[in-house]
């Protein structure tokens, strides 16, 4: 959230917590948002969504019991009903001696640029034109391309937050993107590709780049074959690394650690990864897509080094998990739990091409499917569908698809052989970079 205040919402949040009775802790979160969503197909607007929403969420803690409630309206009668409901729910919860709100910890907020005036006043007709232009560019990129859909989306939200522990803030943020999804046909075979354009406002979109990238993703897979099963070296494209890091981040969640669900519990100070790995969660880095000023408990977001030169340094915590672990919050409250906010690996010195040049035989993994079904962050089992390109004698060779790659999270971290210099600030909670991992099982024929 930006420091610009949103006074009417802050007034509601303040009014809610002013209702606190002796012995009650209350947290109020009040928000209002609007969105535009445009889809173009064959030069025509297929749908245009224009909408506004609002809501109030309240958490009440009484004698170690927690209740929450929410509703999609902001009028006083509605929030009073929500407050009563949250109180009633709190009476039903079990007593958790560590339950409680965060206390102000004096860590200063690093201000971020979360609001763009140009986006706020951007003309609707031009938004439609962007989606149409992206469709035209993708069609022109290659004669084998058909369009699945071309989209423009933006959203703006205003939020206010207040707690009986004295944390108070409000602000607003907005964002936008354009995306394209295409199909490429050749000899009765179809492959798909997609890409997006990002920017603080649509003026920053690189539409030709997105169109070319989507077309290339689809056409480069034409003629792909199913590879043989074998152990091999994999090179993860930055997009795939970003997804992998997201999972690694979840294993360093302090709440999972205190509840005995983390495979890295009890391993602080140990070598859990290749010495090449330095993993940092830094939502104060303005280059990160998920850069932010405060966590969901209202504490300042901050830079935390989780793994340094392969050695596990710390877990991430909310005030709840920190109390249980007898440590301090690291500013990582996310939703009602704990999570990493903006992960990045310290990059290496070589480009992806230079890294591939050093590999006699391997596979460049360009996309993965089924991470939610094939990776278990508690046991560490890792198995995912993939597509990509074979690497032979330091060069990329034929495209391959319909195979899986498998290992365990523990081994993959230790088996990292190189990190690229190609950091890509993707729209996710982890930045991408090329990653080379040895000894992964590829299953195909």
């Amino acid at each position, binding site marked *: 959230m930006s420091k610009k205040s949103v006074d009417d919402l802050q007034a509601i949040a303040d009014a809610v917590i002013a209702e606190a009775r002796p012995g009650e802790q209350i947290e109020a979160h009040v928000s209002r948002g609007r969105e535009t969503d445009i889809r173009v197909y064959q030069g*025509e607007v*297929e*749908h*245009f*969504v*224009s*909408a*506004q*929403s*609002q809501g109030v969420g309240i958490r009440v803690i009484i004698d170690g019991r*927690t*209740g*929450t*409630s*929410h*509703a*999609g*309206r902001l009028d006083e009668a509605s929030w009073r009903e929500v407050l009563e*409901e949250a109180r*009633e*729910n709190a009476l*039903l*919860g*079990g007593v*958790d001696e560590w*339950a409680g709100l965060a206390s102000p910890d004096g860590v200063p907020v690093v201000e971020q640029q979360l609001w763009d005036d140009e986006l706020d006043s951007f003309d609707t007709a031009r938004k439609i034109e962007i989606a149409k232009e992206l469709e035209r560019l993708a069609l022109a990129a290659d004669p084998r391309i058909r369009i*699945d*859909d071309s989209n423009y989306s933006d959203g703006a939200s205003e939020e206010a937050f207040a707690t009986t522990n004295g944390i108070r803030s409000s602000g607003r943020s907005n964002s936008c993107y354009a995306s394209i999804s295409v*199909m490429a046909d050749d000899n009765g075979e*179809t*492959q*798909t590709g997609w890409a997006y354009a990002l920017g603080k406002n649509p003026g920053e979109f690189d539409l030709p780049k997105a169109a070319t990238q989507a077309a290339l993703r689809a056409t480069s897979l034409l003629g792909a074959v*199913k590879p043989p*099963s074998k152990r091999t070296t994999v090179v993860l494209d930055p997009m795939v690394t970003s997804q992998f890091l997201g999972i690694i981040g979840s294993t360093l969640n302090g709440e999972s650690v205190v*509840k*005995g*669900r983390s*495979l890295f519990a009890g391993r602080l100070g140990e070598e859990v990864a290749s010495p090449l790995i330095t993993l940092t969660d830094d939502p104060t880095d303005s280059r990160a897509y998920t850069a932010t000023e405060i966590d969901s408990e209202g504490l300042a977001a901050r830079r935390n080094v989780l793994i340094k030169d392969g050695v596990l340094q710390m877990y991430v915590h909310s005030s709840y998990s920190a109390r249980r672990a007898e440590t301090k919050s690291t500013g990582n409250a996310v939703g*009602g739990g704990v999570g990493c906010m903006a992960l990045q690996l310290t990059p290496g010195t070589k480009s992806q091409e230079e890294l591939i040049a050093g590999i006699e035989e391997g596979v460049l993994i360009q996309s993965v*499917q*089924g991470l*939610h*079904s*094939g990776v*278990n962050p508690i*046991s*560490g*089992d890792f*198995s995912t*569908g993939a597509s990509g390109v074979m690497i032979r004698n330091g060069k990329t060779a034929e495209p391959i*698809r*319909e*195979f*899986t*790659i*498998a*290992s365990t999270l523990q081994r993959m971290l230790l088996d990292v052989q190189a990190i690229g210099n190609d950091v890509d600030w993707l729209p996710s909670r982890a930045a991408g970079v090329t990653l080379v991992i040895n000894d992964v*099982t590829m*299953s*195909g024929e």
Partner: protein
Amino acid sequence: MSLIDLSHEFDSSVLARVLAKGRATGAGFSEVFIEDKRSMGAGLDDGVVEQVSSGRDSGAGIRVINGETTGFAYTADLSEAGLMAAAEAAAAAASTGDGHTHTVSLGPVKRQQVNNVRIAPQTVPKARKIELLSIANDVARGIDGSIVQVSAGYSDSTRRILIANSDGVFATDEQVRTIFRVSAVANGDGGMQTGYDSLGHTIGFELFEEESVAELAERAARQAVSKLRARPAPSGAMPVVIKCGSGGVLFHEACGHGLEADLVARGASVYANRVGELVASPLVTLVDDGTMSREWGAIGIDDEGHASQRNVLIKDGVLTDYMWDHIRARKEGRAPSGNGRRQSYEHLPMVRMTNTFVLNGNEEPDAIVRATEKGVYVAKLGGGQVNTATGDFVFGMTEAYLIENGQITEPLRESNLIGNGPQVLADIDLLGNDFAMGNPGTCGKDGQGVPVGDGQPTLRVKSLTIGGTAA
């Protein structure tokens, strides 16, 4: 206490004015979708009921279709002024500006209730719901000393919807769903393993008179314990036997999504232009049935106001029909099939599955395993994902065993399976006679989640690629 249906809260003349407003800029079709959803949930973790939550989400989505363009706006303000403002925004979004005046008249409301709910969740004290969590926790922890962590979740939702459109459709439905989930972590010499099971039906609190939370908790815990001695799953292609009621997601991904008419119309499905052709083994008859009351994907009407139906999609291996929503059906000049669904009033409807399942074959399930020299037996599948344009799909196996010499032997660690839809459908070579529905699921498409059910008898796929690490 039963909630009264939404039509009592909205004057049909107001709805007619809103629909007329939607058509004011020349659109051929306008629609009001009103939703009032109440939900309650409670979660236990680490032995403590951590959080009891509840919510009320109500609002309206107004859709206006003008030629090829759909305008859509939603609002949480259900007053006439709020609805009119949303209708105006939707109309402007789909505007061609002919400025004619339109009138819309609605007939009498058609009331549906997807299932007769015996015990409405609102009538049950929350404390009784929370008691179930402690039962699950105690039972799961008592199964084996290796169980180190248990979490359990209860939730119910009561979703009342009203749909009125300029074609005169005026219908309501009340959809009550109740679900319970248990997950367990077991710790052994080789690290931690997890077990998970869930129980959910489109009914009220009577769910817990009919089904046992204790048995559910026991299954989740035993799954985690048995996996402690699991070996790495094999790597490569081999026969796979899928236990009844555990693998409906295979069909959901391998062909269900590809039979959705919106994807078919864009040529984004390997099943486009194939009606009347053999697309699966002749053993396979695939049905999507929103009328299967109780089941997780059951609906009285879809989210466009059309009654749910039983639709045969594949008969004896031959593709017979796709699934349809309002827009696609109107374009083809045919009736919709009751498959137009949306996550909430904030979303546009699109073609979605309901309960999707394969009918029984003739084989005894034991005989299917005995007929398999070497392969994998999957007792529980996890989630999946498909690329409908290529047919390539993956899904996870969360409980699986090796088959050696026609016998189920060692448990296997988790991994993904991968296949190509048309190929896998053709490769189904044995189909059991023990049909069962599977666990409640949430299907995601274009960022929207809707509840779906699936089911199948025990079956064998001649060859699937297992994504493990063992040679």
